[in-house]
């Protein structure tokens, strides 16, 4: 057996071209692959992070954003412990599609899945979605929010670290084995943001 305390499944979703694969590659391999082609189906990477001395294995599923792979990607929602919904801060359409994605999440994912909204590509000059708009949307939909850039690496590690931290807390408070999803309770409308101090620094 490998030496880790928890194994969590994290699934990234969102429109094609918002940078899901780049986020994953940046986090797991520390690279930013320019000219990354469209993902076919799903891909997955593994990275072990350490939170407060605990080894956490993150199994990160990177999904294709294109419509024709939707029924493949949907099949991964239910077993996910965390869903990362990514949009591109420089592309309004990718933000406009968020409600559609959320409907899918409601339909297929476990109700107690950790939901995180990520505005990617903050390194770009042609931003179209101000941070406050993203944050507002996340608050309305009871999601965590963070803005990242896979290119200049800002907030990428933080994103996954915080997810791991949050999932450990969930696992401990439910007191059950991981993957058990019987009891459901969402912690109300608590302010959910990791990025208050960070997202606007650029």
């Amino acid at each position, binding site marked *: 057996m490998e030496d880790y305390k928890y194994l969590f499944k994290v699934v990234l979703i969102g429109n094609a071209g918002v940078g899901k694969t780049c986020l994953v590659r940046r986090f797991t391999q520390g690279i930013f692959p320019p000219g990354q082609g469209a993902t*076919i189906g799903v891909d997955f990477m593994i990275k072990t992070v350490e939170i407060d001395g605990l080894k956490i294995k993150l199994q990160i599923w990177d999904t294709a954003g294109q419509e*024709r792979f939707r029924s*493949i990607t949907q099949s991964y929602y*239910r077993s996910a412990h965390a869903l990362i919904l990514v949009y591109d801060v420089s592309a309004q359409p990718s933000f406009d599609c968020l409600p559609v994605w959320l409907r899918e999440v409601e339909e297929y994912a476990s109700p107690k899945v950790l939901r995180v909204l990520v505005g990617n590509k903050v390194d770009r000059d042609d931003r179209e979605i101000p941070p406050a708009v993203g944050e507002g949307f996340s608050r309305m939909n009871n999601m965590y929010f963070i803005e990242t850039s896979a290119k200049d690496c800002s907030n990428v590690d933080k994103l996954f670290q915080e997810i791991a931290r949050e999932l450990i807390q969930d696992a401990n408070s439910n007191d059950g084995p991981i993957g*058990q999803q019987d009891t459901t309770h969402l912690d109300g409308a608590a302010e959910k943001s990791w990025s208050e101090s960070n997202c606007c620094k650029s």
Partner: protein
Amino acid sequence: MNSLSNIQEQYQRLNLEEIRITEKLDLLMGQQCDIEAKLRNVSLLVPRLKSVKSDAKHLSGMIHFTCTLAENVSAKVRELDIAKGRVSECQKRVNDLLDLQLCREGVISAMKNEDFEKAAAHVHRFLSIDETTLKLTAGDIAQGPTVDSSLVLLHEAQAQLCKVLQQKFDEAVRDTDAASVERFFKIFPLLNMHEEGISKFGSYLAAQLKEKTQKSLRQADGESTSVRANVYFADTLTVLLESVARIIEIHQPLVETYYGPGRLLQVVEYLQPECDKQANQILVEFRRSRQLDKQIHLVSEVLSNANKALHEKCDPRILDAVLAELTLLSSRTVLYLRFLRRRMANDLEVGITEEQTRDLRMNEFEKLLQNKTGINRAVQELLGHYIMLERYFLVESVSKAVAMDTAVEGSLTSSIVDDVFFLVKKSIRRSLTSCSIDSICAVINNACTLLEEDYALVFQQQCKLGFPSGYLDLTQAYNAIQSSLQQGSIRLQPSDTEKTKANFLTALNNIETSIECIETLDKNVSHEIQINLGSTMMSRDQEKIKSCLAGFQTSKSKFRHLLDFGHEQLKSSAIKPRIKPWVDQLLSVNHVIDEEEFSCYEAQDPFIQELNLHLDGFMSGFKDSLTVNNYQTLIGTLTSQVAQQFEKVIFKTAFNRLGALQLDKEIRALITYLSTTTTWTIRDRFTRLTQIVTILNIETLAEISEYWGPNAGTVTWRLTPQEVREILMLRTDFRADEIKRLKL
């Protein structure tokens, strides 16, 4: 220098200086004779130096002379070399000139005879000659005009040959004369017309492909009754892809021989678009003929409004055929693309040495495959639909199996278990034939979801209903009848209760068997994947599959929790309430007895035989309706419950020495009996009870120290000192204040 100390210091220093200088002088004196000897040697050598100098001068002169000589000789050789080179160049030119004449004559006669190979060979020879030098040479010699005219003629011949060749090629194509097509195809590179040749040939092959596919598509209507009708489109696509593969297989060596390696991409650039076009036509026809879009629409409606009953539903059985064909379409495409990629990689490997260019070409090729209207994308789209339809198939078939769930004669489980696992297995197996790892993973994921949600829910509901305990005593029976009378009918007829009981036990068995079934399914599926796809999978694919298969383990643990829940229900509604009155009987048996009563008990057992009889009766009621494992769990629960209840009752009973002995006999009899009901040991569940009895059975209070504390030995006491005191209090013959004084 005014103070004494200063003077002394200076004196000291001078003394030291003197010593140092003396040492130095000694050293130099010591060296003197050495140096003198060396000087002598040197003076001896001086006269010899003169002769050495003259010798050296002589040698230098010799070397100089030899050098000049050598240079003279080699210069001649070099000149010879140059001359030889010129001669051979000259010879070549002469040869070229001669060849030019030969070509000229050859071309004329070959053209006359329509021997295009020969003519092309001549032109090829002519093209390999450097024309400008030829002209220069021709200018040097008198033959100038002849050469010029030959050149002109050959150029004309080349142009003519080109024209004729293209014409002939087109003619051959028109006459579908494969041999001639091939013949002329080989001539193109001789005229340095590689691109034209491949372009023409590629178009020719593409046209052939088109014709062939159209022909087999037209047969569709005629063959609707044949056995292969269900997979007709898969067959047609297979024919198409096999044709493309065969074309490449046959013509790649041809291209490689006559055009050189690394040209496959160019050929494929002509073939693939046509292949895509034809494949698309087949797939469009497939969608139309099988009414795929209508089904997709219906199914997505049903799946998204799972609760609403729709008038028109898709019969999963009809889907069966379409699903099978979809997976076939996918597997053929996967195989074809794999073949193409392998071929391309090999060809580029041989043909292009530079790695960067090779990667560039490979990227170009991939782009060709990812074409928006290409077969690759079309099949990806179909697979998306396939996964949704497959999910629907499973959901619908399983809900049917649930609806038609019936008891099976001679089986402890009902039909649902076999049915559902048959369906799941069928579904996953079908996905395996698609050869698409992502689709297989998705189907496995969906199967796990179904097992954990739709399927488990059935049992969860059955378990929640609980096990009807029947009427335990008069009040309960009275209350039940009262309440049913108030509702106007007697609902709980005995047969009803029996049926509910049987249903509950069957559910318990179903859950237990399902755990085994998931285990088997997991094993079989991984095995089959390894057999069917193991050799072609990359390590990433293996990981993906492994991770999705791990979903079965999650499903299994869900069922295990369900099973625990069921047993818990059984415990609280059937075991606990039953056992209590039986064990409570002990209260009515006096355990403060004299010898006479003790032997009386021995003759006629007051309690334990009856309890054992009750337990026996209780268990035999379950033995035949539970699976082995469930029955074992039941006995386990029963045993723990009896032990617990017994303990409670003991604490309400008073004992004397003989009464404790009687209790000891009773517990032993109980343990002996229960041990016969099961193969594994149940003694550990009676540990506390046996310890209580041991404490109760001491002769005097002082004896306790032989068991307790430092004398405990290997015994691990499960009782607290407080409990020990309480137990001792039960003995009527021990005094309370003495018990309190015990040091425990």
